C-alpha cells in the first residue's frame, strides 16, 4: 500500500482558492455557488408569494409583479432550487467534502475532472444569471419546460431566456456527470485498507446511489433538451404536433430523469440524517444492512415510477395503474429507513445540539412529505389534486427537508471539519426553531389550499370564485415566508461570525466514529497524517467492550474487531 510521497509545497493563491484540485476547496466552491443561488431562489419565493397573497400590488422592495413576471418567478424558483441549490449543496459540497474523507482517501479519484466539474457549474450559473437580463427575460415555461409552450417563443414571449435556460441545464448536467464519475469511482476504488463496502458510512452509500441514479437517467433528457433547443432555434418539430411531433414525448423524457432526480436530492439528505442520528444517540444505527438493501431497492424502483407525473397528461390511461402501484410501493423502502431512524433513538442516550435538532427536523418534515406522497401516487386521487397546491406542499415537505433541514444539519455538523471552528449553539438553536415552525406555517396552509383545489402556477387566485374564500390562507403563507427568510439571518450571522471568531475545533468535537474525524480540522491538502486503516463499521457507539461511548473506525485497540 503506497501512502504517497508527501511534499511540502507552496501553492499560489489561484491554485489554492480558484483553480484548486483539492476536493475540500472544490466542495467549498460548490457550497458558495449553492448558497448564492439559495439567496436568489429565496428572493424569488418572496416575490411570487407576495403576488399570490396580494395580487397585482407593489411588492415592497421590488414593485409590480403581474402574471408574465410571475411565470418567470415560478419557473426560475424551481429550476434554481432543484438544480443550482440542492445538487450543488447536497452532492457538490457534502459529497465532495465527505467522500474522500469518509473512505480514507487523500483526494477524489480524478481531481482535475473534479475541478472541471465545479467550473462547468460556474459557467452554467453564469449562463443562467445572464438569462435574467436578456430581452424578454428569463425562462417562464415552468421548471418542467413542457412543450409546445417551451418550444416556440411566441407562446411565452420569451426567446433567448429560454434558450439560455436549456444551455444552462445542459452544462449543469455535464458538470454533475463529471462529478458522478468521481463520486462512484472514489468509494469503489480508493477505500482505505479494511474498509469493505459494508463498513462504508451510509452517507457514502446514499451519495453513490444518487450518483448512479443521476448518471443513468439524465441521458435521455440531454437528448431531449437538444431536440427542444432545435425546435426553438432551428425550426424542427420534435414536440410540435403541426409538424408531426408529440408533446408527450418530452414529458416522458423529462420525468424519466425528473423522478430519479428527486431521489438524487433526497438520498444524500437522508444520508446526512443517518450519519447524525447515531452520533447523538450514542448508539449504532438500527439495521445498517437493511437500510442499504432498501436503498438499493428504492433506487431500482425509482426508474419505474416516473409516469405518475403524467396520470392526467393524456398518456394512455392503461399505463396509470402500473405506475400508481410502483409509486405507492416505493414507500416501503423509505418507510424502512424512517423506522430505522426511529428505532435508532430507542434505548439511546440522546443529546440535542443544533445538528441533531435539524436531523430530527428532517425526519419530522420528510415523514409528512412521504405520507402525503401516497395521495399523489394514487391515480384516482391525483385526478383531483394534480397541479394543485397539494402537490406543491408535498414536494416542499420532501425536498425542503432533504435540502434545507438535512443541509443545515450537515453544515452545523461538519462545519468544524470544514472550517476548523465550531458554530454558535444558541444562534443555531434559534435558527432551527424559527425555521421549523415557520416552514410548517407556510406549507400546512398549502395542503389546505390544495384540498380546496387551488391550481399551481396561477398568478392571481382572486380571479376564481371558488378560490376567493381561501385567500386568507395565501396571505398567511406569504407572511410566514417573509419571516422564514428573515429567520435565516441568525444562520448568516452565525456562519460568518464562526468562520472567523468561532471556538477553535478539535479533531473530533462530536466524538464520532467515521474517518473524517481522525483527520485534522480542517484537513490539509492530502487529508490524513497517515492513511487510516479501518478495523470496524462506522457506528460502533456504546460498544460493551470499551469504556468510551465511541469507537473510531480506525482505532486498532479492540482485540476482537466486529465486522
Amino acid at each position, binding site marked *: 500500500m503506497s501512502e504517497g510521497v508527501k511534499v511540502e509545497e507552496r501553492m499560489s493563491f489561484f491554485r489554492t482558492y480558484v483553480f484548486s484540485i483539492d476536493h475540500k476547496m472544490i466542495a467549498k466552491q460548490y457550497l458558495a455557488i449553492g448558497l448564492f443561488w439559495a439567496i436568489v431562489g429565496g428572493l424569488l419565493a418572496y416575490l411570487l408569494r407576495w403576488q399570490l397573497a396580494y395580487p397585482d400590488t407593489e411588492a415592497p422592495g421590488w414593485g409590480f409583479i403581474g402574471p408574465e413576471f410571475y411565470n418567470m418567478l415560478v419557473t426560475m424558483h424551481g429550476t434554481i432550487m432543484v438544480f443550482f441549490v440542492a445538487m450543488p449543496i447536497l452532492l457538490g459540497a457534502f459529497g465532495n467534502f465527505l467522500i474522500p474523507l469518509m473512505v480514507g482517501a487523500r483526494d477524489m479519484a480524478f481531481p482535475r475532472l473534479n475541478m472541471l466539474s465545479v467550473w462547468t457549474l460556474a459557467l452554467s450559473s453564469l449562463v443562467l444569471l445572464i438569462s435574467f437580463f436578456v430581452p424578454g427575460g428569463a425562462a417562464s415555461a415552468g421548471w418542467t419546460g413542457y412543450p409546445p409552450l417551451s418550444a416556440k417563443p411566441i407562446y411565452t414571449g420569451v426567446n433567448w431566456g429560454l434558450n439560455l435556460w436549456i444551455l444552462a441545464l445542459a452544462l449543469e448536467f455535464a458538470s454533475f456527470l463529471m462529478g458522478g464519475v468521481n463520486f462512484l469511482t472514489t468509494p469503489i476504488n480508493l477505500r482505505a485498507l479494511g474498509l469493505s463496502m459494508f463498513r462504508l458510512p451510509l452517507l457514502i452509500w446514499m451519495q453513490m446511489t444518487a450518483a448512479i441514479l443521476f448518471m443513468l*437517467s439524465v441521458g435521455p433528457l440531454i437528448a431531449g433538451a437538444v431536440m427542444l433547443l432545435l425546435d426553438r432555434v432551428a425550426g424542427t418539430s420534435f414536440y410540435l404536433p403541426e409538424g408531426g411531433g408529440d408533446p*408527450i*414525448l418530452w414529458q416522458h423524457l423529462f420525468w424519466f430523469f425528473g423522478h430519479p432526480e428527486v431521489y438524487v436530492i433526497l438520498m444524500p439528505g437522508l444520508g446526512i440524517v443517518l450519519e447524525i442520528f447515531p452520533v447523538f444517540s450514542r448508539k449504532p444505527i438500527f439495521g445498517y444492512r437493511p437500510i442499504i438493501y432498501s436503498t438499493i431497492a428504492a433506487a431500482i424502483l425509482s*426508474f419505474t415510477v416516473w409516469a405518475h407525473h403524467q396520470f392526467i397528461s393524456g398518456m394512455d390511461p392503461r399505463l396509470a395503474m402500473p405506475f400508481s402501484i410502483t409509486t405507492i410501493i416505493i414507500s416501503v423502502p423509505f418507510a424502512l429507513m424512517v423506522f430505522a431512524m426511529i428505532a435508532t433513538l430507542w434505548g439511546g442516550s440522546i443529546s440535542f445540539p443544533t445538528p441533531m435538532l435539524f436531523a430530527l427536523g428532517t425526519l419530522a418534515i420528510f415523514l409528512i412529505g412521504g405520507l402525503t406522497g401516497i395521495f399523489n401516487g394514487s391515480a384516482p386521487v391525483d385526478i383531483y389534486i394534480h397541479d394543485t397546491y397539494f402537490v406543491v406542499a408535498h414536494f416542499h415537505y420532501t425536498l425542503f427537508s432533504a435540502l434545507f433541514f438535512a443541509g443545515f444539519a450537515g453544515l452545523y455538523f461538519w462545519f468544524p471539519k470544514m472550517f476548523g471552528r465550531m458554530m454558535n449553539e444558541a444562534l443555531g438553536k434559534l435558527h432551527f426553531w424559527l425555521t421549523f415552525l415557520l416552514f410548517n406555517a407556510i406549507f400546512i396552509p398549502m395542503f389546505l389550499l390544495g384540498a380546496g383545489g387551488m391550481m399551481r402556477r396561477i398568478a392571481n387566485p382572486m380571479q376564481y370564485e371558488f378560490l376567493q374564500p381561501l385567500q386568507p390562507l395565501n396571505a398567511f403563507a406569504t407572511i410566514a415566508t417573509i419571516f422564514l427568510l428573515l429567520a435565516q439571518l441568525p444562520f448568516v450571522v452565525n456562519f460568518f461570525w464562526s468562520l472567523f471568531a468561532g471556538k477553535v475545533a478539535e479533531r473530533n468535537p462530536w466524538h464520532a466514529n467515521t474517518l473524517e474525524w481522525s483527520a485534522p480540522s480542517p484537513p490539509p491538502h492530502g487529508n490524513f497524517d497517515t492513511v487510516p486503516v479501518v478495523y470496524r463499521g462506522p457506528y460502533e457507539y456504546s460498544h460493551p467492550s470499551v469504556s468510551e461511548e465511541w469507537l473510531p473506525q480506525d482505532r486498532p485497540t479492540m482485540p476482537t474487531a466486529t465486522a
Partner: protein
Amino acid sequence: MARERVHPNYVGVWLWLVALLIASVGVTTLPVPTGVALFLIFGMAVVKAVLVALNYMHLKFEHLLIYAMAIVPLVIFFVLWLVLYPDIALH
C-alpha cells in the same frame, strides 16, 4: 497493472464485422417479408455490437462490475422504450 493480457485475434474479429456489414446490406435485396428482414438486419447489428464489446472493449476479460455497468443501462433505457411504445408509437 496486470501486464499479462490476452489479446484475441483482432483482425479476425474485424473480418467478421465486415462480413456481417455486407450481409446486412445484402438482406435488403432479399425477397423476404419485412419482419424477417428487420429481424435479420438488427440481429446482425446486435452480433456486431457484441463482437466489438467483447473483443475490442475486451469485456470478455473484465470484472463482473464492468459487465454490470454495461448491461444495467441497457435494461434502464429498455424500460423507457416499453412505456414509450403504447404512448408514442400507438397513440
